[in-house]
């Protein structure tokens, strides 16, 4: 997944700051384009019949959505919708990160076992793949149901843990598959070199296999993070766990009849959640690849 050198050289002449500013401007331009298209569709729809309903109740104006942020959550409350969305997003982010961490740990352990013992790879991989074909909405109530009967000594199993478990369940898969490929990536010559040094399997793992798996791991981490976020939101919706973005989505969605803009506020929260997770993985990417040969622009 490392980009080829060509086509990047132009950027190399710019400073880091310049490149940063330019990429932010591009991102803002993208947002502006979406806003413009939304409003354009609404505008056109007010003159001619489009196949979709463009009335204010179905497609509220962007400024109505932004305005909805400053309303109090319920009348007389000191908390604004913005605060509610921010706190819900943070709650969901915590759950997603917990799920992500568990999923990544489990995924890597699984990959190491599968790499080390071909027997396990043949035996486990089909199950790993099959695990992802179970529809999440079927799984969620099941896990909550099981969770209700789990007792872990002093720790009480709450539905929040069930949601985290579901996030982890979705996150481990891309990671274990990606890590497995990465661990198997070292060339025969590298492996033979290690063997000629009489390296033990553990040494080969730490000194050769892990470092060479990084290029495979990074994209896998990105997919895993996205899966953890999706898993969290879906599981929150499915199980109705309080506090997160998923719950907020339903709560606001059912007020659509009288306040059509409100549900979009929760959608923005879900977007922020995705962005935060992606930013985190990008940071992880920078850290993991710090020792890899940088491409031209380094």
């Amino acid at each position: 997944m490392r980009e080829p050198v060509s086509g990047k050289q132009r950027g190399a002449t710019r400073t880091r700051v310049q490149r940063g500013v330019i990429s932010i401007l591009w991102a803002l331009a993208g947002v502006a384009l979406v806003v413009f298209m939304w409003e354009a569709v609404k505008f056109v729809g007010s003159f001619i019949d489009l196949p979709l309903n463009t009335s204010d109740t179905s497609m509220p104006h962007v400024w109505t959505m932004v305005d909805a942020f400053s309303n109090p959550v319920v009348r007389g409350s000191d908390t604004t919708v913005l605060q509610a969305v921010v706190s819900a997003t943070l709650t969901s982010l915590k759950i997603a990160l917990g799920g992500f961490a568990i999923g990544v740990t489990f995924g890597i352990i699984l990959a190491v076992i599968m790499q080390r013992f071909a027997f396990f790879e043949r035996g486990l991989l089909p199950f790993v793949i099959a695990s992802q074909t179970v529809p999440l909405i079927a799984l969620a109530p099941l896990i909550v149901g099981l969770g209700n009967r789990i007792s872990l000594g002093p720790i009480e199993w709450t539905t929040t843990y069930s949601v985290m478990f579901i996030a982890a369940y979705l996150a481990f898969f891309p990671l274990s598959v990606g890590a497995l490929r990465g661990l198997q990536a070292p060339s025969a010559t590298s492996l033979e070199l290690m063997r000629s040094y009489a390296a033990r399997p553990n040494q080969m793992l730490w000194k050769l296999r892990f470092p060479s798996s990084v290029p495979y791991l990074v994209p896998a981490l990105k997919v895993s993070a996205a899966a953890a976020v999706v898993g969290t939101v879906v599981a929150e919706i499915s199980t109705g766990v309080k506090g997160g973005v998923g719950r907020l989505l339903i709560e606001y969605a059912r007020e659509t009849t009288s306040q059509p803009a409100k549900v979009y506020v929760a959608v923005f929260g879900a977007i922020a959640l995705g962005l935060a997770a992606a930013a985190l993985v990008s940071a992880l990417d920078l850290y993991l690849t710090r020792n890899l040969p940088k491409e031209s622009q380094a």
Partner: protein
Amino acid sequence: MRAKAHSRIAKIAGAATVVALALSACSSSSDTTETAADATATTEESAAEETATDAAETGECTELTPVSLQLQWFVQAQFGGYYAAKDKGFYEEQCLDVTILEGGVDIVPQTVLAQGGADYAIAWVPKALSSREQGAMITNVAQVYQRSGTLQVSWADSGISTPADLAGKKVGNWGFGNEYELLAGIDAAGLSPTADMEMVQQQFDMQALLNREIDAAQAMTYNEYAQVLEAVNPDTGELYQPADFNVLNWNDFGVAMYQDAIWASQERLSDSAYQDQTQRFVTASLKGWIYCRDNAQECADIITANGSMLGASHQLWMMNEVNKLVWPSPAGVGVTDPALWDQTVAVATNTKNLEGVAIISGAPDAEAYTNQYAEAADAALEAEGLNVTGDGFAPLTVTLNEGGN
């Protein structure tokens, strides 16, 4: 490299958005069942003000029995009685420590109960009977709602004042087992839901009706109908008025089915400790419902304090409408009327949905419901000087504000 990373972020964010939108859409279709129902949060706060009398009554109570109740949906006034019983200390009076488990889109309370995830569950009778037929060993121990809260709402100018007027119209329905009263009503009017009208899957909100995409929409008295009356009529700039709409109330057409009831585990009811606990739970819960009848505003506030995000006027409206479904209870609160039970079973057995499937294939056995607990509870509550039938019950007149605020 940076630009590339950004495009990836954008893609992930885009995907997240799409997923979020899709989810909000699917939740809209699958949760309609539960729209009716609401759920609660597991609030740990127990009644703060325990009076001296309560303490005296709990004299022989050395340790509260932990009990869990699974709701169909989030905390809202639909479950007012249970929250009131918890908040006002009625459960504690009965030596119970009740944890109220809120529901969600995919939480099926009777299944949670049957699997042992909760000690009691709130569920609509037809749905619970369907689960029961499929093996969930559960028993209705208190029929809290005495009437159905399901309406078919249409524009007044569409002239739909009886089910027969639905002929030739575009009729919205929620599906997922929420459409049987509508179908039974259509059937009783001598019409076919497929040949004589167009049946449309309806979203959980009422936009389709307000945009006149459909002629009649399903609504619960305590929720969706209020949402319509909280929306601004763009033509007048004022809120929509009840006079703008016609309402078909299935209680008036003999096809209503029993809704919220307290279900207990049938297997565990053979155990005397669980019997005793069930009796105490039913008594305290029904006392909560009596409290909400007489203190609707306070109950609405209790619900809000327990984390409901609904607006104040919507919450009070819901509490008041739910009170109308519970009260009056001529045979005593929580007592199942065999005639209405039979009507529920008849509609559930004889009405086929658009896929040709009935809710249940035959009448349930006698253990599907029992009045033993509700009757004993009513006797005890009456001895406390409480009115258990709610004769002379007068609902409030609630004014809805824009957006339910």
